[in-house]
């Protein structure tokens, strides 16, 4: 290989760790396939987003500083989540403004943080992916990925390389799924109603699966699909790109 390998720190995210570890492994596989050297800093937990969005600034700061410490030596920080990468890039600078002595580390981490598909396309220059998928999928743009991280074309470009896969866009892929973190619990009825609109939109495409890049949206959309009694599958984009392994 002409270039030295890209050295990547993978921020797995707390939800992937707890709910869907296979997404983390899919991300690893894709990064390695793109010629990266990947480390997974051991002590990592959560970026602090739930606390931040709940108004608990102090808890959010503690977790954000912890994350920065754990990743400050990484050349690249890759996150398989639009909202967690958005939390770091769009909100850490404001959240940690009170800690000027940690500024340099913060700036480094912020500047080096990318959402997974964005990193694969725009930094690693990945063009071929191992995944195969016999069927039609539709892609949901998660709000933070789209509006904070500019993730729109990257997952689609990569999905186009998955053998057997056809992408059929839903009418309003950019429309919020209604998750909103603790909003989904505090205002469950409204949240589920918004999710229902998303499910209608997905159903209208008759796709076999809805693919997305954020665990929050995933739990919400999948939860509503299950309750509706539908069989549409819900996958994280990394799973489809790396090759789906249902358990």
């Amino acid at each position, binding site marked *: 290989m002409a270039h030295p390998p890209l050295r990547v720190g993978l921020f797995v995210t707390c939800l992937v760790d707890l*709910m869907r570890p296979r997404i983390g492994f899919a991300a690893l596989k894709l990064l390695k396939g793109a010629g990266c050297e990947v480390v997974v800093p051991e002590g990592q937990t959560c970026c602090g987003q739930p606390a931040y969005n709940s108004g608990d*600034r102090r808890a959010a700061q503690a977790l954000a500083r912890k994350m920065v410490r754990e990743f400050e030596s990484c050349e690249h920080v890759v996150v398989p989540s639009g909202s967690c990468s958005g939390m770091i890039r769009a909100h850490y600078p404001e959240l940690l403004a009170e800690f000027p002595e940690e500024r340099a580390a913060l700036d480094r981490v912020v500047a080096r943080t990318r959402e997974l598909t964005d990193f694969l396309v725009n930094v690693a220059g990945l063009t071929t992916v191992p995944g195969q998928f016999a069927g039609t999928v539709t892609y949901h743009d998660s709000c933070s990925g789209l509006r904070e991280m500019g993730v729109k074309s990257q997952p689609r470009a990569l999905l186009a390389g998955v053998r057997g896969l056809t992408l059929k866009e839903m009418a309003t892929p950019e429309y919020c799924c*209604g998750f909103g973190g603790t909003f989904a619990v505090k205002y469950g009825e409204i949240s589920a109603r*918004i999710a229902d609109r998303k499910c209608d939109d997905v159903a209208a495409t008759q796709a076999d699966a809805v693919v997305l890049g954020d665990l929050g949206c995933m739990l919400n959309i999948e939860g509503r699909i*299950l309750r509706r009694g539908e069989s549409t599958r819900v996958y994280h984009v990394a799973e489809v790109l790396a090759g789906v392994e249902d358990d």
Partner: protein
Amino acid sequence: MTEAAQEAFSGTGGPGTARPQGGTFSGRAHDKLHDAKVQRAMRNFNLAAARSRAMAELPELEDIRTAAAAIRDTALADLDVWLERFETEATRRGVKVHWAETHADVNRIVAAIAREAGVRKVIKSKSMVSEESHLNAALEAEGLEVVETDLGEYIIQLAGETPSHIIAPAIHKTREDVADLFHQHHGTPRKTGIPELTMEARAVLRGHFLSGDMGISGGNFLVAETGSVVLVTNEGNGRMVSTMPRVHVAITGIEKVIPTLEDVACVLRVLTRSATGQSISNYVTLATGPKGAGDADGPEEMHVVLVDAGRSTVLGSDMREALRCIRCGACMNHCPVYQNIGGHAYGWVYPGPIGSVLTPSYIGLENAVDLPNAATLCNQCGVVCPVRIPLPDLMRKLREKQVEAGLRPRWERAGLRVWSWFAQRPALYALATRLAARVGRLLGGKRRAIGRLPGGGWTGERDFPAPQGRTFRELYARRPR
């Protein structure tokens, strides 16, 4: 408590108070989610599509948004100086300028103007500020007849309701509702065609336009350079109320001032497109004083009421950016929460994202605890706002203030504290999540879905997908090397 909030809870509940509607946000939202008529009306409502078509034709959009925000910021930065300039220019043109510190002052000032001018009938064009102060009720208590003339406002006045949207106040009403209201109040045969209903309203309201003694309008902008009040309408009622009656009173917040006529041109380009998707509204009027010597038409008196009622407090807070608002409605039109529950669930004058910021700011954080939280922070509102108000950031700041003020429920605070305690201790966190992953997996059973969780917030109308059963951390430690 802010002054406005004290007023809200002074217990009278009468005109002139800023009071939230009864009940809870969640309760009202629940009712609206199960009100088939509201749901049908909300599905019909699509100003968002009109906006996006209009914006597609404006390649300079982002630059104009930046410029519009800068114009508003310029005015806010030296607000008192701009207001005095406006006052000087308007006064020079014969306008009587009044200053209202509170909502009660608004009502008192307008009632006094009416009394002195011997007014009997008041015709009103849309004014959200007058909704804040319940002006109609106050004037009616003075024995005045008050007629709303914006078609939507007229409909809800007949229905005895409040607006559910700042530019489409009756959007929650169906044509059937309107048919019933007109039949009942006009004593005419019931008709359900929208054109026929519109024509009937035109005929009835035309009579009022020709017989009103006093016209009340809001003011989209105040132009400091010329002392003019800018009125933007599509129906023409803004022109009517500022032209036909003997007295014209424009009521507007102190934040509405902008420097020059050129600024009017700039801000209008994004206001009307953001609101209704039009490149300009049908009528834009600059009213600068009463009629002059030789004028055959126009009011004999013109008054402007400049309203504070909490705005100066917001100016000095970290909510200042909200004062840029030009009331286009785009944030609510694009809000997934608003689109599902409509405006009334928000409980006060301004619904949607901007309402979730303004309501707690104007009537007190403790009187609108739900609003800043009742949002997914999807930021569709921030993306469309023509003056770039970072609405989700402001809502998040309000959430922080609630936590600081101890306004969040105890279970929520405790939950966050426990969770963040663990999340800062990786070894314990690893244990806790191992356990949670296993329990979750078991609860999920064969369906891999949890149908009921404590509290029921999540699982009322959704399942919770079960975790895979092992954490990433565990599996990664055991990975083949």
